[in-house]
């Protein structure tokens, strides 16, 4: 297995073709990160492109003090923020219905799981973006605490406390939705 940090150093040194490997390795997760953050498919694709353009442009500033993923998600977050700053009138919409359509599970026990999945997603969508972000980065983008704390610029203990907080809010939202559905 290759080391992403190594690859990024090679890109930094001028071996631009190595960026392709980093792209292939991360494109799906990055794309889904944008989707989970509430962006449409088309916008998420643009944001992936924009993020990698910046990865290429900023390659000289990659220091290796964090992992490549952490650095990349930092750029990704700024890319989204920049986009919404420019397009203030756009509403963040969560394509819950679309997401359900892509789920391949259908009958029986799987139906229950699908239901639960949908409610999880809905509760995720209902909490604040700051809380959602911490959960998404950890649970879905699989960044570890070190990476997330450097990304969000907060110390480890603060991060843990924010995580607990976010999950508790998520749980409350979930229970509320389950109550409404039953």
């Amino acid at each position: 297995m290759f080391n992403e940090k190594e690859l990024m150093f090679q890109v930094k040194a001028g071996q631009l073709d190595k960026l392709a490997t980093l792209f292939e390795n991360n494109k799906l997760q990055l794309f889904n990160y944008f989707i989970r953050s509430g962006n449409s498919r088309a916008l998420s694709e643009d944001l992936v492109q924009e993020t990698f353009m910046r990865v290429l442009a900023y390659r000289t500033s990659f220091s290796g003090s964090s992992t490549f993923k952490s650095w990349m998600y930092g750029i990704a977050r700024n890319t989204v923020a920049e986009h919404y700053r420019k397009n203030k009138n756009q509403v963040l919409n969560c394509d819950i219905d679309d997401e359900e359509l892509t789920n391949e599970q259908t009958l029986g026990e799987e139906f229950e799981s699908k239901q639960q999945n949908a409610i999880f997603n809905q509760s995720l969508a209902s909490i604040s973006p700051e809380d959602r972000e911490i959960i998404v980065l950890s649970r879905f983008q699989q960044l570890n605490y070190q990476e997330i704390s450097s990304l969000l610029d907060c110390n480890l203990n603060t991060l843990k406390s924010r995580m607990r907080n976010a999950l508790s809010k998520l749980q409350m939202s979930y229970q509320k939705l389950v109550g409404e559905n039953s």
Partner: protein
Amino acid sequence: MKNQQIIDWKIASLANDNSNEQSEELSEALQNYLKENTQLQEELLFIEQFWTNDVKPLVVPSDKMDANFYQMLSSAQSTQQYSSQQETAQQHSSHHIAAQEHPLSLLEKIKSWFMPNPIAQFATLALVFVVGLNLNKTPNNDDNNLAYSGLQQEISSLTTVLAMSMLQKDSASERLSGVAYSRQTDLSNPLLVEQLIELLARDKSTSVRLAIINSLGHLKSFGSSEQRLFILAIQEENLLVQIELCRLLLNYGSVDIKKLLTKQVNQQHLKPEVREFIQAQSMASYI
């Protein structure tokens, strides 16, 4: 306090965090503790379910996303290749001396970059470092604005680089793309403007030359280029290019150049159609 630690531990173990330091002994004590704390139990159960819940199949992006990325990468690679060839060719020029003044070995490594002029390279590099440092700090709200405006500048810089690379391509359509990119940058880079005017003077495609003239209309001021554009206009063989250059200078040029141009009308240096055009323009506009 203890509850919080337990939750932390749970999250960490689910996330397979390497900083997880819980040992097996605690889990027994933990189980006993949990029996008395139903609320905590529920919380832990919820977290477990959420974490282990089957992630629905990932949404797959379209092929277009891949295509766009590879096109960008290919563009970057060909410019890098071209620039390094240029660099080799210019080894003995005076520019090389300027480049050698940069002490950092890092700069040396990325010398074969987009822009032909090492001094301009350094300027862009400095900008990237500044912006990069801001990014890595992941700033708080006060620094956000600085980072974002830095980002904007960097994007403009990247577009400039793209424009300059496209303008060097063999195909006229790609050069037209380069002109379109240059328009997006507000032509703030003097090297880009220089390249455009150079291309205007010698490009074999009338379409490209006309597109450049349109692009130059977006310049805040022509500065020293005005004289050059004037001379190009007077000497131009191509009717469409000549008339467009005159239109450019009449619409956006200084008062002096406008006077100079209308003078030429009398001196019969311009094609009759162009003379006719200038006369019509002069009558319609008033200063």
